[in-house]
């Protein structure tokens, strides 16, 4: 039996092509006299089918796209955007924009802004003006159709599409991936559904969707044909959250990290407003930083930066950049400057970016 076990292991190395000649002879000798081992060897050799498959490779265009996307996270240089979109689309876009500008000049009025603005993973990819029919963005099986005035930002890390303005129609087929559409006041979580969302309203056309506040608490659950809007929802208030947040900040300032965490988590459990939830999450990130857990702090800062709006989001993004490695910090600083060109850390961010070049 021991001999059989050893032989079967040799069979694996034979499949790999790493078997020394002496072992190969021993293997063949054993296989000649042992039927169970012969069968086992035939079973492992089935994997030659996978060996024989041509290894996957990206087409030249997709390879270029993948490289440019990765590089694009390092800066938002126009040349990168050009490459990402592909020359044809840029030529088409440039042509259409040129025609629109000339037309506007001739007519003496400003060219209408007829393209949704799309940011993917921190990089402005833009979308050329519509040539014909609706323009659809896709990830996995989900389809997102932004209105012409829409401004959306896709974050692959947390499957979230942030809608700053305009309208999106989202379709997630049965068996497809789930998607989160976040506005500054609520988040739509959908699976196997089709819905239309604006920063104030959600209408489900098919399936169902859940509406959550930014802290993850469910506000409403909608079925096909149902609609929900912020107007119908009384603004969330939490009177005790303000004092508790101050208490958490005070504990953190005194180095009582665990106590500060408990209080901040308590605030989140009380159903805070969006601003309070942002503040509580920011304190949890600060606590991780003070505790020396850098990866967790970065993850939490980025969560705040990409889920919430306002000062907390701005502070969080810059804080994450300060903790990241120089190369990754460059990406975050570029994102900071794009989102907050006149922000309180803009000058420092520009200085750091310049210094790193």
């Amino acid at each position, binding site marked *: 039996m021991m001999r059989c076990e050893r032989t*079967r*292991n040799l069979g*694996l*190395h034979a499949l*790999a*092509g*790493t078997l020394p000649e002496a072992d190969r002879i021993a293997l063949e000798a054993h296989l000649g006299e042992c039927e169970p081992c012969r*069968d*086992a060897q*035939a*079973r*492992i*050799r*089935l*994997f*030659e*089918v*996978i*060996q*024989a*498959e*041509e*290894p*996957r*490779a*990206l087409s030249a265009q997709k*390879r270029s796209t*993948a*490289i440019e*996307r*990765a*590089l694009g*996270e*390092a800066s938002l*240089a126009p040349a990168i955007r050009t490459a990402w979109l592909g020359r044809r689309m840029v030529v088409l876009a440039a042509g259409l924009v040129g025609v629109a500008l000339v037309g506007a000049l001739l007519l003496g009025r400003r060219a209408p802004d007829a393209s949704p603005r*799309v940011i*993917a993973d921190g990089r402005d990819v833009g*979308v050329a003006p*519509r*040539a*014909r*029919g*609706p*323009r*659809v*963005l*896709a*990830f*996995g099986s989900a*389809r997102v159709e932004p209105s012409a005035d829409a401004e959306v930002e*896709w974050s*692959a890390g947390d*499957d979230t599409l942030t809608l700053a303005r305009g309208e999106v129609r989202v379709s997630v087929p049965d068996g497809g*991936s789930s998607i989160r559409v976040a506005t500054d006041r609520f988040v739509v979580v959908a699976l196997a559904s089709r819905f239309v969302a604006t920063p104030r309203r959600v209408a489900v056309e098919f399936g169902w969707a859940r509406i959550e506040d930014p802290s993850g608490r469910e506000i409403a659950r909608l079925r096909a044909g149902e609609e929900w809007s912020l107007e119908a929802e009384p603004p969330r208030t939490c009177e005790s959250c303000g004092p508790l947040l101050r208490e958490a900040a005070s504990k953190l300032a005194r180095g009582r990290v665990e106590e500060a965490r408990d209080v901040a988590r308590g605030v989140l459990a009380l159903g805070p407003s969006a601003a309070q939830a942002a503040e509580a999450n920011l304190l949890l990130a600060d606590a991780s930083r003070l505790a020396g857990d850098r990866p967790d702090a970065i993850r939490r800062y980025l969560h705040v930066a990409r889920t919430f709006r306002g000062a907390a989001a701005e502070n969080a993004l810059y804080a994450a950049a300060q903790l990241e*490695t*120089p*190369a*990754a910090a460059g*990406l975050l600083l570029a994102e900071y400057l794009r989102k907050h060109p006149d922000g309180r850390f803009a000058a420092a961010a520009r200085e750091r970016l310049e210094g790193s*070049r």
Partner: protein
Amino acid sequence: MTSRPAPTLSISPGERRLAARCRRGDRAALGEFFRQYSPAVERMVGRLLGRSPVYEDLVQTTFVEAIRSFPNFRGEASLATWVSRIAVHVVHRHFREKTRRPVALEVIEPGAEPRARGASPPVEVERRLLARRLFGVLEKLTAKKRIAFVLHAIEGYSVDEVAALMGAGRAATRSRLWFARREIDAHVAADPVLAQAALEMGDIERDES
């Protein structure tokens, strides 16, 4: 077996210069690095992953991780080995997370539909179905065993190379391969289609000999 590039463990002076520029965040150098090593990354991710819609996503994730990791590159291995190790790590993390990773955002041109492929010959179809079934067997293994098996048995890396790529010891790698082989054998034997295919393969060999 389709040949893979031979692993080089030492770093050349040219690679060292390129790495130094990449470490400083030099975009031109990073572009050069990716263009040079992208095929190796694509191959590695593709082999480990099999047919998966997240293939492109994981290739790109490997690039992004490489950008982030350059400050930690100490030149102890060649750039090809280093970036392959990152690819292995990215795929390993993907297996372990057991969650769907979103495919990167893309713009679909209006009217653009997936092109219908021409009908494949029956033998080719059978081969593909068999390959898919075999990948199904691999999916039943734990992430570490699956990766070790694919790197060794499919890609032909030696045990030491697999250990280096996975950041594991030699003994642990041998153990993973041993268990992977046993589990795979049991799964294949229990699958009527694969068991029949193995029998036919055995018959062909007997006839040939």
